[in-house]
Each structure stands twice: as C-alpha cells, then as structure tokens.
C-alpha cells in the first residue's frame, strides 16, 4: 500500500517537477508575521518592497504567512531547507526563530527587521520610529483644535512605547500644554489584529475630546480609521502610507521604510555586497518620513508643511534630539 503510494508520488514527481524557476536567479524567501501581507501596514510594506525587487531585479520570490507565532521557525526552515539565498523575517517576534535557524544554516543570509541580532550571517534593521513619531506629533499639535490628541498602540511593548514617547514629545514641542491620551489594544500579540477593540478605544478617545489619534497597531488600525470616519475626527496611519485607506480622515501616516530596507538588502545580496550587522535607519537615511499625497493634501496647510519640514531638517542635523524610549529605559533592545 505504502510502497505503491511512494512509487506513485515518485513517478508523478519525475514527470512533473520540471525546474519551475531558473537556477541562476537569486532565491529570496519572505516570512511575514501574524498581520499578513494585507495588513495595509507593516507587513504590507515589506511585501511591496519584495515584489518591487522581484519586478526590477528579476529575483525568485516566495512569501509565507504565519498564522501563529510558533509557525515562524517552521516557515524559515522550509526556505532554508530549499537553499534560499536570502531569508527575510519581518517583525520582532522573529528574532529568536531567525537566530535559531541562522545558526543551523550558517551558509545562508538572513535579514531581520525590527530586532537586533549580531550573528555573522544576519543583517538586522532597526528603524528610528521615534523620529517619525515626533514629526507626526508636530503635525497633530499644529492641526488639533481641541488641544487634545490621542495615541493607540498595539501590543504594550517597548517598541510601541517608543512611538508614543516620540509622538508626545513632538506635540509638546509645539504646544507644551497639549494633552495626550494613550491606550494600548492589548498585552498579547493578538493586539496586532484586533480592529474591533481598537475601534472601541478610538471612539472612547474621540468622545473624551480627542480630535486626532495616532495609531501604531498593525492591522488593528483599520478600526481606528473607521472610528475617525464615524466621529468625523482624524487618524494618523503607521508603517505604510495609509492616507488612501480613508481619504479625508487620515491626517498623515508615519511611514517606516520597511520596503526600502527589504529592497536594498535584496539588491545588495544580488550584487554580492550583503553585509551582516545591526543597521539603524531614520530620517537621515530617508527610511522614516511622514506622507503627503493627494489624499491628505487638503488636510495639511502649506504653513504646517513648512514648519514640519523645518523641524525635520533640524532633527536630521542633530539640533533637535528626539527622546528615545529605548535609551531612556536602557533595555536590551537599545544595543
């Protein structure tokens, strides 16, 4: 019975498993976290960077999504087992799985986004989220009419507190008496995809007089955008440029260039210039910014834009030092 099935599968294999992709092209595997490629935010940004690389550089790309955090290591290993040249892990939850798999396969290269790793075959990219959050804080403070703004974080962890710290500091730099109301969706990783609860929190904030809420909660942010539309208030998007999601209700987005980091790493690997180590990307590198396009143009006046850009230049020059939650609370993450 079994030998028959075995024979059958080998027979089919022999006939059908022709080389599906040219062996010369670079094989890149992308493992997304719980949010999935349609979170319109963090994972979506990574996905678009990788698809762009596929289009422009002609690499072979394969994406795996992980329904649970414990499936990450298995997905990474599946790529490694098939000798993928570059394996990309998106999100801080992938830190320990990537390190585990990178040790098992020292000949392959890995990219880890949002968490540090100092293994010789891992490149890890950390973004200066606080700088971008500071900028959108400035925009929020210049736009608010009630002098009361809100922050909705996903999972209550240092990474997200770093957003909040920067946002609050940016707003206070414009108006020291501004009030910031901070809520977190949850303490577990389900907080990244709980738009229902995020919406409740946002409605709560809006009913307390908040008129602009900055959301840093992955795909949960959809709930905040809904709430903004319902209450006719404004939300600020995160990670990807989310202005198009609810035009007129999204003031701006704090864009984190995950796509840029992914694209550049693939390009470097392709040209044989892959460098391991921890890389910090911020405003200066163009990897962090706020978004301004046709969808939010009517919401941001030329005056606000001018002032924000002036502050951005000061941060880039180092005149303004944005408070960094990691450094203030010397944690392991601030290596």
């Amino acid at each position, binding site marked *: 019975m079994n030998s028959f099935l075995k024979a059958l599968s080998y027979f089919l294999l022999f006939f059908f498993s022709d080389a599906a992709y040219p062996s010369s092209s670079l094989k890149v595997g992308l493992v997304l976290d719980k949010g999935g490629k349609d979170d319109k935010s963090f994972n979506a940004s990574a996905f678009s960077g990788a698809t762009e690389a596929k289009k422009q550089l002609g690499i072979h790309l394969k994406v795996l999504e992980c329904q649970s955090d414990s499936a990450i290591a298995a997905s990474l290993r599946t790529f490694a087992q098939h000798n993928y040249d570059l394996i990309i892990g998106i999100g801080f939850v992938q830190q320990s799985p990537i390190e585990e798999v990178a040790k098992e396969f020292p000949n392959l290269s890995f990219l880890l986004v949002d968490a540090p790793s100092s293994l010789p075959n891992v490149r890890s990219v950390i973004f200066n989220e606080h700088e971008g959050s500071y900028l959108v804080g400035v925009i929020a403070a210049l736009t608010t009419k009630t002098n009361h703004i809100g922050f909705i974080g996903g999972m209550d962890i240092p990474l997200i507190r770093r957003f909040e710290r920067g946002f609050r500091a940016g707003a206070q730099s414009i108006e020291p008496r501004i009030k910031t109301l901070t809520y977190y969706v949850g*303490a577990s990783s389900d907080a990244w995809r709980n738009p229902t609860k995020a919406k409740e929190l946002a409605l709560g904030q809006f009913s307390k007089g908040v008129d602009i809420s900055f959301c840093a909660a992955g795909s949960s942010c959809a709930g905040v955008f809904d709430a903004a539309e319902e209450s006719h208030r404004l939300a600020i998007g995160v990670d990807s440029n989310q202005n198009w999601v609810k035009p007129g209700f999204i003031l701006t987005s704090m864009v984190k260039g995950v796509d840029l980091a992914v694209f550049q790493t693939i390009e470097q690997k392709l040209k044989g210039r892959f460098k391991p180590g921890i890389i910090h990307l911020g405003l200066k590198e163009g990897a962090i910014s706020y978004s301004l396009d046709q969808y939010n143009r009517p919401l941001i006046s030329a005056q606000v834009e001018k002032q924000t850009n002036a502050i951005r230049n000061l941060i880039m020059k180092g005149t303004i030092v944005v408070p960094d939650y990691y450094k203030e609370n010397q944690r392991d993450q601030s290596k």
Partner: protein
Amino acid sequence: MNTVNRIFIPMVLIGLITAGIIWACGENPAILAEAFSNTFFSPFGLGYTIYYATPLIFTGLSVALCFHAGLFNIGAEGQLLWGSIAIVAVSHHFSQLPVFLAIPLGIILAALAGALWGLIPGYLKAYRGSHEVVVTILLNFIATTWVGYLILYPLKNPNTQSAETEIISSTYFIPKFSNAFSWFGTELFRTTPANLSFFIALFCALLAHLILYRSALGYEWRAMGTNFTAARFAGIRTRTQTLCLFVISGAFAGLVGVNEVMGSEHKVIEGFSPGYGFSGIAVALVAENNPLGIIASAFLFGGLQTFARELEFLSDNISKDISIVLQAILLIFIACRPWLAKRLLKQRGESHD
C-alpha cells in the same frame, strides 16, 4: 469488503477532490505529489510531521478516553496550556535540579497541571450535574487568559519584546532526535523540532489501550459509554469514574507541554497551540477512539499541517488555509464512511465484514 479498499477508496477520492481544488486555484495538481513526498518521505518533512503528531496523540487520547464513557472533553486546549506553563513554573523555582530529577518532575507536573484543570469539569459533571461540554469550552477561555497573564507578567522573558516566557533551565530539556542518536553518527531529522517526547506519546497510547481493553477500570468506562444507567445499576460508581476520567484526560492533554516546552521550544510562546485540543477531537473521531488508531490518525493530521505548508511553499496561489479545507474534506469522508461503505458493497454485491 477488505480494509485496504475501505481506506484506499476514500483516500483516492480525497486526493482527487484536493487535486480539483488545486487545479481550480490555477495550479498544477502535480505539486500534490511533490508536497506528499516532501511531507512523508523527506527527513525534514517527516521530522515536522512527528513533531506535529506528538501533541495530537496526547489530545486525541484525552478526548477518546472520555468518549468511551460517553463524555465529551472539549477542554484539552485549556488543559494543555496549564501543562505547558507548569513546566516553566517548576523550572523557574527549581532551576538547579539534576537531569534525572528534572525531566521526570517536569513530565509529572505537566500531567498534574492538566489533570487539575480536568478535575473542575469532572467534579462539576459528576457531583453538580453541569454539562461537561459547556464547562470545558468555557474553561478554555479562562485558561487562555489566565495562562496568558502568567506568560506576560510573572514568567515573562525580560530579554525579548515577544509574548513568551523565560527559557527553561537546560536540565529540563528532552533531547531532539537530531541529538539523541548522534552516537550513531547520524543527525536524525536534522533541524526539525522532533524530539523524544514522541516516545512518551506512544507509551501513553499503549497505556490507554491496556487500561481500556485489559483492565476492570476500562471495562467500567466502556460500560458507562454503552449504557450509563445500566452501568450505574450494575454497581459502577459512575460519579467517581467520571471524575477519574476527566482527571486522566486532563493529564494526557497536559503532557502536550512536554513536547512543546521540554522538547522543542524550551519556553511557552503565547498562542503556541494551533488548536491541538480541538484537532484532538477530529483525531479521536477518525481513529474511532481506538488508542492505537490514534497514533495513525495523529500522523495523518500532523502530516496535513506539514503538507499544507509544503503546498503553500510549492505554489503561488495556495495559502496555508488549505490545511483547514483538507481537514474538512477528510472529516466529511470519515463522517459518511458507513454510507460510502454500504454503497460500495451494494454495487459489488458483497456482504459486510
């Protein structure tokens, strides 16, 4: 009607339906064969299949034992969470124990923690008359949030932002296959998390088989399942036995923690279980609650998980949700098996065996 046909014909039909789905997704159905061989005939796939099958054996047994007495344990999911967190807790407090004490202690406490969580629905069913389905389902939610609290606060790993506990002390590690057989010069199932707790699962299945079919206790349980009232009038202490069954079922479910925490991850990751407790119901159903059959059916369901990942990997349009579709097709076929067998028999004019 021989057994080969009874298994073979549904399998072929399942294969054809799956191929149809794959074809409808715009993929070459031949990837099914490749995924199949990657799942069961490559050391990597087989290692993962064993790793996924191990917890399913435990939860399958947990569900099946209760089924034999006509009771439904839907609470394996909560019981396995307690089993897992108990190991981290014991390692937290007794981190310096030598290996020969640490491993048995971890295993016993995992079982004990699951058993305690099983005691609650057992007691409520036996002495208070609550419906065990409702109680066990609701206790799952309590277990998830309570254990979630323990993961995120008292036992949290301070060195990571992920929702996971600290790493257990290395004396509690159960060797992986790749290390355990290294003296033979082979790294069996290299880079997979398959570990020796698989043998504990096999042992438990054997134990459950012996208790069920070779002991007075098992006889009483099966009598309760056949006719509860008659069993009670025959002098079987149904209340004590109900309590006892839920405790033992809970213990089996708790042992999932041994595979996950002591064997592979060495920590509890929040939400690590992709519904092992609920899949256990399907595993038990497919095996018709036979403890030894559960080993095979756990392999089938564990293999499905690996298979789905391979399919996702080999194709462009198929997502991992295919595993749920495959499970559903499988369950439909299992559910209509008596009908299918009858139809096939009629056509061939054979008599039922």
